[in-house]
């Protein structure tokens, strides 16, 4: 019953490298402006995502987007949005240090996430993202593949969420 977690390859949990992360609020009618500034066509349906290289955009509310980019591009992206603000009102907030991102991969990824996430994850579109809860902590869940997810959680909730994931991996490893 004391199988080491590292020997269990049905699912793995890893803390991923930081990214530049932004929360964008803009009127959907002005979305083309934001797409031009960010260099990526922002999706319009809640839950949908678009990714190109290290840039990604996920629609998480009727007028709300989560943007990812390389850390080195953060200042330039903020300057570009600042320049567009005079003509196109919007708000953009840097969240890069607010959240920690955890990668969950392997055939048992959905089993592990379902221990604490109420969504029917089998229905979630690959490439999309959703804001939801993980044992009452608010998270954003991104689906990169059939069995590959990324979970973004506020820094202060990280020990709780990561601890639950570690326990879940152990439980799956011993066949519970």
């Amino acid at each position, binding site marked *: 019953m004391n199988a080491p977690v590292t020997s269990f390859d049905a699912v793995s949990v890893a803390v991923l490298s930081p990214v530049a992360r932004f929360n964008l609020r803009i009127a959907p009618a002005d979305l083309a402006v934001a797409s031009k500034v960010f260099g990526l066509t922002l999706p319009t349906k809640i839950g949908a995502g678009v990714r190109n290289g290290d840039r990604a955009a996920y629609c*998480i*509310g009727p007028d*709300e987007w989560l943007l990812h980019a390389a850390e080195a591009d953060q200042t330039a992206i903020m300057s570009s949005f600042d320049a567009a603000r005079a003509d196109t009102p919007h708000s953009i907030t840097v969240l890069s240090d607010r959240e920690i991102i955890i990668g969950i991969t392997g055939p048992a990824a959905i089993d592990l996430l379902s221990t604490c996430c*109420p*969504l029917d994850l089998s229905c979630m579109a690959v490439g999309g993202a959703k*804001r939801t*809860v993980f044992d009452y902590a*608010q998270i954003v869940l991104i689906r990169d593949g059939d069995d590959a997810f990324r979970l973004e959680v506020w820094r202060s909730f990280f020990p709780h969420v990561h601890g639950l994931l570690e326990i879940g991996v152990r439980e799956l490893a011993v066949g519970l």
Partner: protein
Amino acid sequence: MLLIQCPYCDDALPELEFAYAGEAHIDRPKDPSALSDEEWRDFLFIRSNVKGVHAERWRHINGCGRFFNALRDTVSDRFVTTYKAGEPRPDLSGKEPAQ
């Protein structure tokens, strides 16, 4: 698990993502200082406390973040329908009553 249809996400999602936010369609008085104490009390505190189909506000707080309205049967806890904030209360007359 109870699923609630979010009219903005256009999807039925777990109740855990939602928060209840009181009775719907209560307009804030345009000129509060013109109201009597009794009228102001009624605006702040007096609610209809319906037994049956009730119009109420919900917020998809752990999802898209939006407030919306719902018709929910307070006896059966069944959601009859949900609709976007700002839309009128749907007319259920002529339809079958909620189970």
